[in-house]
């Protein structure tokens, strides 16, 4: 049967070549969209690692300190700002952070573990936030092992850090990271892991997994960089008009800084919108393109059936049933679809082979491929339905007379 269909298709190769090209490009479009959709979907289902309910952020703009003295004065001012924010009556908890959840900013560093012997493994890129002790409570970090920062850490001769699970995995593999050292950078204090929190995805629900590390900022340490943000846990039900009170109080403490207040779930909304809108636009265009292809294919197949009325009539006269005719029309199209998607698949598997996937995992890639294949087969099957029904209704007597 398949061999016969192949022969029939080959006989009409020129007409079929265009259909093949069309399905090929449709497959590429569907695959590109599916890749994005599957990637976002798997991200959406990962744990986020924090909770921003009733959390607000205060951004502070200040000058880059010119010398050591200015650095010290700045962190002192920050300590006063932090105390002032704590005293506000609707603020429950306060912390300072260099970057806040859902922000686009980030600081990355190439890190590796300190080897027990020999040379350090190649560094991996880890995102780093510098936070004060209160941060874990304000955004509800989920401690997996070890401990979080505490005020007594100020006395340590080394710098305590907390990793998220992803960072623990890429840096230490299956080993327990708590108590281990990171390879030392020249002129920098040694860093030692004191705890591990669950995956922390600063850039929000739709972003992929990214190794993350927290460094401790101490307001009593004059050489520490001043965090650029406060995160505040507000009393539930605090409304936006309270922002003005916060700003007035903080400006009183540091008149030379510029402050801005935002609720973190508003930031979250903006962040999501910025990511979803362009994708939505692309998906909409892709949907229209596919609708166009579907209608076009239906039209072309219909035309094919009309042209081949005599051939179909002959088959009917020779005793072929309607089902057999249906199967022929659908089968021919499915065969062409298969050839097109085989070509398409050969093209897209070059991505993992040439290691062009970037942050996309092979699982995401294969899931997207499966989704794209299903969609394309479903699409072409639907396109073949009406023309095959038409072909089935061909009356042999009329068809053989047709000219």
């Amino acid at each position, binding site marked *: 049967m398949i061999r016969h269909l192949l022969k029939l298709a080959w006989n009409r190769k020129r007409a079929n070549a265009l259909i093949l090209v069309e399905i090929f490009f449709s497959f590429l479009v569907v695959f590109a969209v599916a890749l994005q959709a599957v990637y976002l979907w798997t991200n959406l289902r990962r744990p986020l690692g924090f909770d921003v309910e009733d959390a607000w952020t205060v951004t502070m703009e200040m000058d880059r300190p010119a010398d050591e003295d200015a650095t010290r004065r700045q962190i002192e001012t920050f300590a006063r700002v932090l105390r002032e924010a704590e005293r506000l009556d609707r603020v429950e908890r306060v912390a300072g952070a260099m970057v806040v959840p859902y922000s686009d900013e980030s600081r990355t560093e190439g890190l590796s573990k300190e080897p027990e012997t020999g040379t350090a493994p190649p560094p991996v890129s880890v995102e780093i936030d510098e936070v004060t002790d209160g941060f874990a409570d304000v955004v509800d970090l989920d401690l997996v092992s070890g401990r979080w920062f505490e005020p007594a850490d100020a006395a340590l001769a080394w710098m305590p850090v907390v990793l998220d699970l992803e960072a623990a995995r890429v840096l230490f593999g299956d080993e327990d990271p708590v108590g281990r050292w990171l390879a030392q950078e020249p002129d920098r204090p040694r860093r030692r892991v004191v705890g591990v929190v669950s995956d922390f995805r600063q850039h929000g629900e739709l972003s992929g997994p990214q190794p993350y590390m927290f460094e401790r900022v101490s307001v009593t340490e004059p050489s520490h960089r001043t965090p650029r943000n406060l995160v505040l846990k507000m009393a539930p039900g605090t409304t936006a008009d309270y922002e003005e009170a916060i700003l007035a109080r903080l400006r009183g403490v540091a008149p030379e800084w510029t*402050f801005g207040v935002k609720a973190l779930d508003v930031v979250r909304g903006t962040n999501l919108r910025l990511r979803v809108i362009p994708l939505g636009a692309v998906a909409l265009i892709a949907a229209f393109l596919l609708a166009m292809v579907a*209608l076009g294919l239906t039209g072309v197949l219909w035309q094919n059936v009309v*042209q081949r009325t005599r051939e179909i009539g002959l088959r009917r006269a020779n005793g072929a049933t309607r089902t057999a005719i249906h199967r022929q029309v659908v089968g021919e199209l499915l065969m062409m679809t298969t050839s097109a998607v085989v070509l398409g698949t050969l093209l897209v598997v070059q991505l993992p082979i040439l290691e062009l996937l970037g942050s996309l995992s092979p699982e995401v890639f294969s899931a997207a491929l499966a989704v794209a294949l299903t969609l394309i087969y479903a699409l072409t099957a639907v396109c073949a339905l009406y023309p095959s029904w038409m072909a089935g209704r061909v009356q042999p007597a009329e068809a053989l007379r047709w000219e």
Partner: protein
Amino acid sequence: MLRNYLKIALKVLLRRKFFTAISLFGISLTLVVLMVTTALFDHVFAPHPPETRLDRTLGIYTLRLEGEGSRSSGFPGYAFLEQTARDLPGAERMTIYSLQQRAVSYPDRRKVLSWLKRTDGEFWNVLDFRFVEGGPFTAEDEANGHFVAVINETTRERFFGPDTQAVGRPIELDGQRYRVVGVVEDVPFLRFSAFADVWVPISTKASTAYRHEIRGGFQALILAESEEAKPLIREELQSRVADFQFPDPDEFQVAYTGADTLFEALSRMLLPEAAHQAQPGRLLTILLTMAVLFMVLPAVNLTNLNLSRILERTSEIGVRKAFGGSTRELVGQFLVENVVLTLLGGAIGLALSALALGAIEESGLIPYAELTLNPRIFLWGLAMALFFAVLSGVYPAWRMARMSPVRALRGRSA
């Protein structure tokens, strides 16, 4: 003859309504996407007030610094621009301004967020703002740190209510009080150099540390004396940047920037390989490739439909050929049909694009966007429609020309 072709074309199109509808749907949809993209592009890059003299304008938009092991890509600082962009030969005027930032106010206990841009006095001479009330602040205001502000119409309405005068009245932003000296028409958000809700002098910043910053938050626009002076400006800026003395040579040793057009600056920001040297050509190639890739599917679809339409009419073609119709005539007729169809789709596409642009404008996704179908975009759309007509008509026409009359008469295509 042409009238006859047109008549036949309409008849044929009406006879197969389904095919015609699909073709029109495809053409108009593709055109809508292309036109909306073109309109957005035009919105960002074409001269519109207040940026009316783009042909003579160059900007220093980005700054990349490199040192041993450290790199930074971002925006120039005030001190860097002061030292490199001031008094360039061939430049008529030069302005330094900050990137717009959010500023918060609470008039009548409501929260209002405005985009605030800090500029010098020359800003108002380099750009061509349209004042509805009052006027700009001056270089003197900037030198003396006067707390004066120019606001746009929307801000005037937000703070002072509809149909009121604002000049002379106070406005509070980020806890600082300014006196309004002028009101301008709204500037679209995507005109990044000019855009803001409120413009105030740079010297009203709370601290003066910006005067010593090499990087961060500022840009400069240079108005050349003439278009011919632009290469001179570019060269002189490059040599000044090459000679730039870093106050802290331990951190960075080399700076990369240029007197760019907007598109050149965009190539620096988008393409990692263009960090040292703007590559507008490469960016254009990438964008055009994307556009062509997007058009492939609709074009193949249309070709397919056109081919079907022709094959269906093999007997008609056979008759025409048998009675001495030349291939040229037949191909001509078919192309006319195709062009009529495409132009029809183009008209629908134009109408739909206008609707889509209106919807984007309404949605407020892009503040103060004015996305209109101007004649330039209309011509682009027309050109694209014709391109499509020819593209999707060539292969079917070639097939038609090769049909042998004898077989065609019998209703066989090959």
